[in-house]
């Protein structure tokens, strides 16, 4: 290629998300970037992925932007329309969901997510969405991928409310609580993180092209593990960018 391919940070994140999915996996998604990542994987290396929404929707093919999962726009051309006991029960709780995508107000050094409140839970606070299916996916999926904006207020040493557990305070804490799985990746608009196998603390895996390490670290409120050898996140290919723009999301309906 002679000229550098142009892409947005959002497209890069979607591609990084798609890379986390293997063919034949069952994936629990919410709206937005996880949908693009999953559709992209389905159209490239993983055609046999099953996509599910918590309220009982399997493999929809929406053509209009939805305001949320309750919007019939996102159920369009689904293969199954059922309910929570079917999706979150017989699929997720049974242990069949391979990957769940999660987001939230903030996450922390051990991948715990807060979607409930900001402030002091025992004093003055602002209440937001709460769990929905988030806690269930975090508790029952084989692994989860966290998508979050790279801002210091969203990447804290400890979250003010653990709505959806990651590795709790690290080490064997999650297992001791009786939970399987756990977060495998955190994808921000500046970097991709994993988790140290022993301490379960967040560890930098790669930095997106054009970002310096200081830039990544200065926009976090905790210090992640930084390995000596730090690669650059693989950028999207021309085919991936074309698929996102022309086939998966020509209207820009998933872009926030």
């Amino acid at each position: 290629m002679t000229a550098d391919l142009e892409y947005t940070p959002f497209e890069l994140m979607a591609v990084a998300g798609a890379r986390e999915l293997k063919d034949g996996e069952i994936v629990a998604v919410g709206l937005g970037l996880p949908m693009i990542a999953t559709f992209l994987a389905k159209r490239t290396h993983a055609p046999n992925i099953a996509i599910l929404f918590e309220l009982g929707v399997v493999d929809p093919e929406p053509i209009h932007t939805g305001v949320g999962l309750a919007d019939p726009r996102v159920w369009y051309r689904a293969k199954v329309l059922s309910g929570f006991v079917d999706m979150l029960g017989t699929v997720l709780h049974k242990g069949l969901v391979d990957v769940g995508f999660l987001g939230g107000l903030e996450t922390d050094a051990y991948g715990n997510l807060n979607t409930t409140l900001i402030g002091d839970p025992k004093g003055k606070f602002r209440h937001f969405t709460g769990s929905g299916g988030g806690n269930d996916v975090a508790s029952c999926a084989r692994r989860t991928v966290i998508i979050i904006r790279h801002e210091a207020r969203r990447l804290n040493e400890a979250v003010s409310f653990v709505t959806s557990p990651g590795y709790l305070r690290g080490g064997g804490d999650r297992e001791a609580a009786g939970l399987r799985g756990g977060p495998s990746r955190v994808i921000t608009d500046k970097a991709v993180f994993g988790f140290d196998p022993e301490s379960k603390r967040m560890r930098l895996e790669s930095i997106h092209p054009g970002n310096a390490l200081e830039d990544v670290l200065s926009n976090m409120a905790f210090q992640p593990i930084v390995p000596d050898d730090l690669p650059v996140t693989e950028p999207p290919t021309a085919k991936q960018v074309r698929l996102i723009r022309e086939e998966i999301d020509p209207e820009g309906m998933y872009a926030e």
Partner: protein
Amino acid sequence: MTKTTTLAEAVASIPSGAQVALSGFAISRCAMAFAHEVIRQGIKGLTVSQCVCAMDADILVGGGSVERIVYGGGSRGRFGQHHCVNRGIEGGTLIAEEHSSLSMAFRHLAGALGLPFIPIRSLRGSDVLKRLQEVAPSEFSYVDDPFTGDKWLVLKPLVPDVAVVQVQVADEEGNAWIMGSRWDNEEQVKASKRAIVITERLVPTDVIRRDPERTVIPGFRVSHVVHLPFAAHPSAVYRVYDYDVDHIRQYADASKTPEGFQKYLDKYVYGAKDHWDYLELIGGMKHLTGLMADPVLGY
């Protein structure tokens, strides 16, 4: 046996302090006309249970009818937060038992099956569970699996006094079809002591008998059937009508403050003597026709 009646009569069967399961999910199939009538009749002290918080619960909380909400969290998606519920939680005027979607579905399922409790993998290790310990310590416990010895978190079943369900099609006995996703409506109804069905279309029982596999709610569980078009407005009813973007935005703005919300109630709830009056207030037949669902898309 016909159970068809007016909305006012169905609502009057619910005493203050009752436990009510509501059928809405965010902006879909919310029991809005029902909620308006509850507020108009001045019913208070309700416990509301719902998997994912919806506009029916929010307006009931804002209207002062709810003492306790048992729910799995939720928002209106791109239409923002449920301000009345959040304000009630922040100010301590609303007791909130917050769970997750699956915990709520399982609690309704356990109620439907007549089980004493239901084990669940969710909630463990989270602050959601810590918070439940403070708000509702008697709603969960731990047991040892008699087969493996593993320790399990178990939840108490929910058995609401009445489930209120907004459906697309029902007959006069209350045999009802729900089209599209049903979230945990079926479990809610089957967990409850009885159900009030609010239907967009009332059909002869022969229509039900022709496609009985579509029946989600059997009539023998139903105490009242209310035939009322657009009873979920401004929320969506799949394959019947779309949500009303402008009206939801108006509600969202109004509910940001107690004063704004009171004005909304004065205009659309207290300002309407019944649902038909409300439909005129929001723009009547001309406006409603514009919301009708496309038969291919379903919205």
